[in-house]
């Protein structure tokens, strides 16, 4: 199935929850915030959110900016 992650379609071969996706990408949970289908997903919910075809995931963190 294809999941849209940060605007790009990515193929995922087996059911995966948000936490597994984040860890598989080598991301540090403390440093990022995730939006799942346009709603903010709090870290405590990541384990329970199983991603489905066409889901939209945004993963963001702070950078320098004016």
């Amino acid at each position, binding site marked *: 199935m294809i999941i849209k992650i940060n605007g790009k379609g990515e193929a995922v071969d087996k059911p995966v929850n948000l936490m597994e996706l984040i860890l598989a990408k080598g991301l540090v949970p403390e440093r990022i915030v995730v939006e799942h289908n346009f709603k903010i997903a709090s870290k405590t919910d990541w384990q329970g959110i199983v991603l489905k075809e066409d889901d939209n995931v*945004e993963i*963001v963190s702070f950078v320098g*900016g004016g």
Partner: protein
Amino acid sequence: MQDILQIGGKSISNRLFIGTGKFSDYPVMKKALEEAEADVATVALRRVDGASKTENILNYIPAKCIIMPNTSGARNADEAVRIARLAKASLLACRQAAACDWVKIEVIQDNKYLLPDNIETLKATEILAREGFKVFPYMNPDLSAARRFVDAGASAVMPLGSPIGSNRGIKTRELIEIMVREIKIPVIVDAGLGRPSDACDCMELGCAAVLVNTAIAIARDPAAMAKAFSAAVKAGRLAYISGIPSQSLHANASSPLTGFLREDR
């Protein structure tokens, strides 16, 4: 003399807000914030690409700084609202619970001049102010728009001096002067200030604060430049509250003109 700015539910003493973009690295940025004794620093939110190996910028912002995320990258009100909510969630997760409701709304579609869209910015301001955010809209200087931002519940208005990163100073001076005279919430000049005298000028006009990023970040010595801007902001503010005398076309002698060493006529 204590000169405190009450803004966004906070009391701050340094009216130089500093943007954290374009610094060569985070330690350099940290030193600039420290040298300027900044009370407010802006940050941006970006998509994470690959493994997040780079360090957390928040670790390099002094604890006393209020962090004001911006919504840069937003092209309309909906995106700005989403970014603001994500930023608030990020701050709540990574840092102090206090002072995480400030947000600078930036909605830009124009990539050449990076001029903001006041209409979309207003829509985002209305929504976010209702949600309890302290909203600081980055705007094209315009009195009518500023009044609408006030009605929408903005904590301040942030008109641009000149295009972002252009270092051209306060080209919108007349319009900003009008806003300072007519608008009851703080007017903060944001963008384009290229040198400390520009910042001083804004403060002499009666602006509540200024936001500077590029001119500090790309200086040869950013920490020293941050200090120079901070001093200029203090000087301009002190001049403003001291009552700047009016100008006249002719001379007004500052020494006594009583004639001496010659005959009275």
